[in-house]
């Protein structure tokens, strides 16, 4: 490390996140590899290092002898200013080499409000921000992750998108790139070939034409690119690559623990949920694999906590058998086990007591909406009785810390639905009074309401998002009715949700607005202290775009969407049917009870789901 960098590190907050060298980080000899891969996370180190998908892909890539994959995170504001002032480019944490030394620069897209960080990181790394300004094969910018299901707002900046499970597509992509590099292909020749890999989307090979009303007329593939880019999936999670060890940061991160992934996909079909529709079909890991992987990762990382990761933990087939076996390993080693994403309707005394054996943390239940009618609209098949029953068990078991999650601004929402939120909270508080065996200790009930953002590839992709004014009015109303003693009410400013809504369903014309916003200093937009709503609105105006066109417009059912040529497995007809059912407040049973015919099973051999 040179002196200049040491001087900078002595001035910035939390310098440990900028130096690398952690246990489990991989260092290779540059001369021994033919592909240098920068795995970039467009947010801070603490967020980046918590992300399971990045941990998996980092391991997978570094398992290849010819590839050295390094991590690159977005520096916090103070560090960025120091780097720019000193003329030090953004670098890979392992080697300290500038981003411009890398062949492939890949970003994972977890959140729309991290998009400006992508531009900023490229710029800080000395790499041209616009795809058309990167004329060589080197510095190929690739993206994947949940937001790639509508890649269009980033079409100006990104060369290729990987749609679906990264484990499945990554090595085909890097193999092709290594061949292209070896044989000296042009960037264009590589892109045309890459588009032939199933699940690879090359935005520059598609022409988009628009109608007078601003909606899309048609999307035309060129150079032999496919009309529909269907996502790739790992069919068998038991044989899928899973790292035996993780990078163990030497500084505190958001999710500072080991993780195992129970299953991919979700059997529930909540209509607001993008993950629930884009990770289909459901694929499960066997108990034996999970226990083996948990032991390996705990042994190699030294973590004192492990969490079971999935979209709906209690839907894992043999959850009690699994937790029993894991606790057998964890308890004598003082390792605690956490079970996030439990559904209130499956919360049992038995399960609670098992988890309690190690450490008692808070319990969180996602009710999402305040009335049964609205919960039926969103297909959150959970009843108020389920929530109260779960709370009853929890309070009797000595818990005194319960969190309840809600959304406001859901389609068809009325004042009655908002009143319902207050009503549930009141009932939960009363339930505590009836069931606690220690009133003196008090109770902490936290109700959080976020603003609903309609997402592409979901049944609500046709719906108008509430405007900023509507959301603020509802929030103000909530504040007047959330009066129950012992209930803390949390909400979040609606501005970030509105911008998220604008970009989530954006088209490639938004590239101009994103570029302008970044040029004018927007970055770290997901962080309140950095977010500047007015600057964003001005950027949209200057790009000649109306944010309301994207966010708060009810779309006709036959509209061509910017993401229609990206396949998430779930068919558009299914989403349409689900939208229609939602207007009648009619529910669709979960996959375990009855197949809803979403079409994602076609991605599996033999078309049979894992339920």
């Amino acid at each position, binding site marked *: *490390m040179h*002196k*200049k960098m*040491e*001087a900078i*590190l*002595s001035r910035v907050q*939390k*310098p*440990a996140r*900028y*130096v*690398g*060298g*952690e*246990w489990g*980080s991989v260092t290779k000899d540059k001369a021994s590899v033919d592909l240098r891969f920068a795995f970039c996370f467009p947010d801070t180190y603490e967020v980046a290092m918590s992300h399971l998908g990045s941990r998996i892909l980092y391991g997978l890539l570094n398992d290849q002898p010819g590839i050295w994959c390094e991590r690159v995170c977005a520096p916090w504001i103070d560090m960025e200013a120091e780097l720019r002032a000193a003329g030090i480019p953004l670098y890979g944490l392992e080697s300290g080499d500038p981003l411009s030394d890398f062949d492939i620069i890949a970003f994972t897209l977890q959140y729309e409000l991290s998009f400006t960080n992508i531009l900023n990181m490229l710029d800080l790394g000395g790499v041209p921000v616009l795809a058309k300004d990167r004329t060589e094969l080197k510095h190929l910018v690739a993206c994947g992750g949940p937001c790639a299901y509508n890649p269009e707002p980033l079409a100006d900046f990104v060369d290729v998108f990987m749609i679906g499970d990264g484990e499945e597509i990554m090595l085909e992509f890097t193999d092709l790139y290594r061949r292209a590099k070896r044989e000296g292909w042009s960037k264009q020749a590589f892109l045309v070939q890459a588009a032939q890999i199933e699940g690879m989307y090359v935005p520059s090979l598609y022409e988009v034409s628009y109608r007078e009303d601003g909606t899309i007329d048609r999307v035309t593939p060129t150079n032999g690119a496919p009309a529909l880019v269907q996502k790739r999936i790992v069919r068998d999670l038991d044989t899928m690559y899973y790292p035996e060890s993780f990078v*163990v940061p*030497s*500084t*505190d991160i958001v999710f*500072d623990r080991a993780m195992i992934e129970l299953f991919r996909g979700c059997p529930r079909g909540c209509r607001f949920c993008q993950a629930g529709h884009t990770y289909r079909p459901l694929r499960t890991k066997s108990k034996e694999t999970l226990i083996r992987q948990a032991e390996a990762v705990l*042994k*190699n*990382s*030294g*973590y*004192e906590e492990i969490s079971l990761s999935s979209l709906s933990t209690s839907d894992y087939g043999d959850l009690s058998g699994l937790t029993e076996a894991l606790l057998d390993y964890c308890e004598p*080693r*003082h390792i605690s086990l956490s079970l996030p994403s439990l559904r209130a309707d499956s919360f049992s005394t038995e399960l609670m007591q098992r988890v309690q054996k190690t*450490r008692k943390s808070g319990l969180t239940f996602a009710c999402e909406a305040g009335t049964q009618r609205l919960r039926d609209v969103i297909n959150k098949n959970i009843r108020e009785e389920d929530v109260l029953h779960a709370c009853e068990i929890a309070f009797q078991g000595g818990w005194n810390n319960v969190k309840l999650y809600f959304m406001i601004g859901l389609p068809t929402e009325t004042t009655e639905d908002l009143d319902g939120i207050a009503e549930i909270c009141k009932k939960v508080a009363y339930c505590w009074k009836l069931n606690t065996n220690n009133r003196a200790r008090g109770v902490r009930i936290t109700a959080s309401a976020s603003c609903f953002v309609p997402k592409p590839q979901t049944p609500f992709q046709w719906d108008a998002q509430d405007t900023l004014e509507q959301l603020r009015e509802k929030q103000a109303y909530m504040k007047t009715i959330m009066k129950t003693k012992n209930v803390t009410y949390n909400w979040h400013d609606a501005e970030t949700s509105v911008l998220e809504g604008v970009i989530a369903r954006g088209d490639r014309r938004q590239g101009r607005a994103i570029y302008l916003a970044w040029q004018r200093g927007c970055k770290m937009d997901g962080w309140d202290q950095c977010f500047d709503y007015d600057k964003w609105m001005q950027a949209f105006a200057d790009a000649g775009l109306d944010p309301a066109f994207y966010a708060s417009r009810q779309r006709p059912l036959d509209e061509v969407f910017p993401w229609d040529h990206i396949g998430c497995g779930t068919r558009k007809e299914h989403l349409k049917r689900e939208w229609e059912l939602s207007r009648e407040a009619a529910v669709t049973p979960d996959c375990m009870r009855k197949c809803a015919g979403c079409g994602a099973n076609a991605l599996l051999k033999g078309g049979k789901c894992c339920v």
Partner: protein
Amino acid sequence: MFKARMKFAKEGRAKYISHLDLMHTMQRAMARCQMPLWFTEGFNQHAYVSVALPLSTGYSGECEFLDFNITSESVPVNAVEALNDVFPEGLRAIEIYPLEDGGMKVGAIAWSQYRIIWGFEGRVPDGFADAVRALFARSSVEIVKRSKRGEKTVNMKDLMRGLTITETADEVTAVVTTAAGNDNLSPEYLTRAIRQYLPQYDIPFAAYHRMNVFTADGTPFR
């Protein structure tokens, strides 16, 4: 169960690990090499580890001490090698030994020896090393020292001893022993004193490294 002490070094990239983070990092490394750590019995069970005289974040050191309790009858064989195999870059175990009768008390530490490196953009400015020597040759060098109890003016010469200064083309190195414990003197005050009394010199880089720790009578702490 008995008490053990590890002497270790914290250098290179590891010098940016803060005190609290170092405790977690140590606990996890111990778990990785299956050190039989003793855990507290209470509601929130945790391993007991403690660092004597934590270094400031950004300082390096080769005379650091971590106390912990182990459940086995003796320190496992090859414990030093086992830990070094699982440490992050920059941490290095030097010695692990049992503390008979509680061992030397951390409170007995009275002096720390540091190496300070002052670095420059190009060559060391003419006369800098001599000016520094002359400054600290004075019988009194008054500085304002900040502590939890507030600010007070002290003669820092009372809190330091054995200063030697050497120079190369672009660096000046000081080795100095400063007071530790209750009325301590951070080596950073030497840099501050130079900035205050010799303002004609700009010092862009300063690095601090702890070399030794002593008790009041000059016995190396262990």
